[in-house]
């Protein structure tokens, strides 16, 4: 998955608006309700969050949206209706999607951070703003096309420079938008994770053992040496690439494991698009497993997939601590996406396409909120400007010698 170029979006279909663009405190479907203790995002599924139990807030006190629905894939869309070569970055496109992530109660996003200038810079506000509100960000180091990034990560003369660029731009923790975010990164912000390539056999032609020995292993050790938080609980998380979520995937994952995958990453990664492969994926690995992509390409089946298959994954693969739904938004209608984005005279709007799944997630949030009013996204981030790429970001990118 994540093969299509998603830097621009042209879909204009109109469905039920999610009222995030209007700046309302919360979205549709009646999410505002009574009070309950806030639920901290830990990367663990519901009921498995770590850390001390927070003090319950006073009745009527507004709380952050409980992060109870796991993670979700977000594409680094830059603008709606613009051409693929247009370097424009519309902050509204970023804001609407991140608002949806926050309001739907996700504790992490996974976003592609390619090594082409426009899309690299476009990913910056997604990662920084998400972390600033306590949401973890998994940066997928993978290109939408070409072999440039894979080549750079393989090349001993370029690898460290490229990884340093990613560290400087994406791993530097942002300032939290407010105290008490309860993220697991520095000062309660969200953590950052680097996923080294995506489905390497299928996307860049790298066999499983070559991936582990010649790309992931060297990247892991270089990232450890670059990480100022190495050895601390807030250190960068290195996530291995997953393999295809169909029947081809389990043998490739097994080949990675037997080539020493467990020794050169912090999270082992699966993709699951076929229910039949769950028993084939290794149930007891030496490490934590994240499923960074799972979904079904039919809107009508979204809810059943999340409600029935996600628990099945957790039950059959006990090492799984986090599942990222695929995906929040993509141009093609009726497939994986939960939302559509559309341009209106008032600005960019999010339209719920997968209403049943959306309502399911909303109900989870309401249940966890236990009647407390919820803090709106715009209260946390009234302006996207502080998270947009800076001059230093562009200079760092332009100075990196990977070509």
């Amino acid at each position, binding site marked *: 998955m994540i093969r299509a170029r998603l830097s621009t979006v042209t879909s204009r279909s109109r469905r039920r608006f999610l009222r995030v663009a209007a700046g309302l405190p919360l979205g549709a479907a009646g999410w505002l309700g009574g009070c309950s203790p806030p639920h901290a995002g830990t990367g663990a599924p519901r009921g498995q969050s770590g850390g001390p139990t927070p003090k319950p807030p006073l009745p009527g006190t507004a709380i952050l949206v409980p992060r109870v629905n796991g993670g979700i894939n977000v594409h680094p869309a830059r603008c709606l209706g613009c051409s693929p070569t247009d370097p424009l970055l519309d902050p509204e496109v970023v804001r609407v999607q991140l608002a949806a992530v926050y309001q739907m109660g996700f504790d992490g996003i996974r976003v592609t951070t390619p090594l082409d200038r426009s899309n690299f810079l476009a990913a910056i506000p997604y990662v920084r703003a998400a972390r600033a509100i306590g949401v973890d960000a998994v940066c997928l180091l993978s290109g939408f096309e070409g072999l440039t990034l894979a080549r750079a990560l393989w090349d001993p003369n370029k690898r460290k420079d490229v990884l340093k660029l990613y560290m400087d731009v994406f791993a530097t923790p942002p300032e939290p938008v407010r105290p008490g975010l309860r993220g697991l990164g520095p000062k309660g912000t969200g953590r950052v994770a680097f996923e080294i390539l995506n489905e390497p*056999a299928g996307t860049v*032609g790298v066999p499983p053992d070559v991936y582990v020995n010649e790309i992931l292993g060297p990247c892991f050790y270089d990232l450890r040496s670059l990480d100022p938080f190495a050895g601390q609980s807030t250190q960068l998380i290195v996530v291995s690439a997953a393999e295809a979520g169909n*029947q*081809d995937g*389990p*043998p490739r994952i097994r080949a990675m*494991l037997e080539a*020493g995958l*467990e020794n050169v990453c912090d999270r082992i990664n699966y993709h699951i698009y076929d229910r039949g492969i769950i028993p084939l994926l290794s149930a*007891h690995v030496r490490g934590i497993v994240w499923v960074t992509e799972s979904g079904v390409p039919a809107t009508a089946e979204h809810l059943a997939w999340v409600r029935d298959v996600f628990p099945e994954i957790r039950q059959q693969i006990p090492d799984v601590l986090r599942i990222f739904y695929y995906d929040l938004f993509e141009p093609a209608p009726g497939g994986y996406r939960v939302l559509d984005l559309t341009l209106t005279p008032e600005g960019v709007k999010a339209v719920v396409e997968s209403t049943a799944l959306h309502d399911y997630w909303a109900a989870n949030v309401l249940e966890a909120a236990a009647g407390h009013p919820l803090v709106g996204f715009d209260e946390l981030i009234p302006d996207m400007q502080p998270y947009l790429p800076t001059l230093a970001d562009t200079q760092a990118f332009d100075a990196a010698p990977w070509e």
Partner: protein
Amino acid sequence: MILPACFLLLAASPQDPAAAIDQPPPVTAPAPSLQPAPTPPTGAELPSYPLGPLAVPDFLAPGHPFTLTDLDFHLQDTVRTDQAFTARVKFKDLGYLRADFEGETRGLTLTTHRLEVSAFDTNGSWDLTADYRGRRFVASGVVRRLGSDSGRLVEGSLDFRLTREVELQTFVVGDSSRPDERFLREAALGVFWQHGSALETGAQFERSYESTLAGENRHDLSSGSVIAQLGAAELSGFGSYEDVQGRFPRRLGEASGQARWSVAPKLLLEAQADGNFEAGAGTRSHLYRGALTWFGRRFTLPRAGELARRSLALSREAFRRGEYEFASFDVDGLRAQRERLGLSPQKQALVSDMEAGYRAEVAERPLPLAGVEVRQTDDALADVRGWSVLAFLGMPWPPALPWRASEGSVPFLRLDLMHSQSVSATDFRADENTARLTVSLNREMDLLLRFTRTEPSALDIIRGIGERSTFEVSWVYARGR
């Protein structure tokens, strides 16, 4: 006790006098062959080659004191140049001495009637091998050191001839460095049955231990193979089932089938399908292949003609006289067998069968003059799909257009052109084009020139490898082939 008795009765049955294998008589004259063969071609029927006529070799001629029997040279020039050189001589009538040089590898091999020893060295890695070929068994041992690692790999095998047609096979492999605290790495038991020239079948069970960075895997592999000549078709098949136990257990299967069918006296049709499977994960890889070859003279499948009967007769007679031989059906196997038997004390009794076999081999020489082959492959593990097409055209000797070849013609020139394409990553295509010219100067001497242009695969590009050209030259001399 009943079963061995039955075997004994069969072996000693009057219909099969050559089966008395236990006490080879000290005969000096050739014993009657099992299957009376037609009169072999006479010397006058031996063809002429570009370098002139080639008589039936004297298989018993001793070296004087050294006589050159093999001289191979191979040069390959691509991003670097590699050379390989092999020379082999016969020393009097005691044996053969062979020297190999290939890149950093140096090797010496000594072959006598029953013993073969060899030593190879590659930058500190070395192999020492010894084979003893007895009357009823072949015992082999290898000691191998890989790199600077202090461990030694020790391999031993024993093939035991239960009957003239049935062989029991065993081998074990140990590793002195004891990965996962285990010395014994592999052990296998198998059986092989060569029933005449029309049927060969075998089965094997092997247990092996594999050390991975994720822990040790135990592999139990059961496999079987068969090759049968049925009328104008040769059918072969292979199947295996592998149970892998370890942290990541799985069950794997492999199936392969091939058919070669002489659809007309000068036309051969081939089809092949191979597949690897995993329980629950479906097909892991496959290969499909089809080929059509047109010959300039009548083509005979290797197990279907006079050569097959002669080879079978020779091997049975040799076995009866205390030599551990099975019938061979390919040119190199037949030559190696003749060389072994040429060192035997029984050589005078076997030489006429060897000569008859050689004449049959020459008489049934294939003369491929045009053909096409198509392959399609898919490897799900590496996610690489590919296909290739090969076409060739030959010119016979005496020089003539392909369709003017006669029964007296021999191979002379052959031009092969191959185009292959592999697709990996997200539809990343890499093409390869090869042209190969083979010049056969006579049965013993070939010159081969090959040029290949290869586009990089996705993995090549990631590794910094670009488009490349490869030029190869090979020269082969094989006396008595």
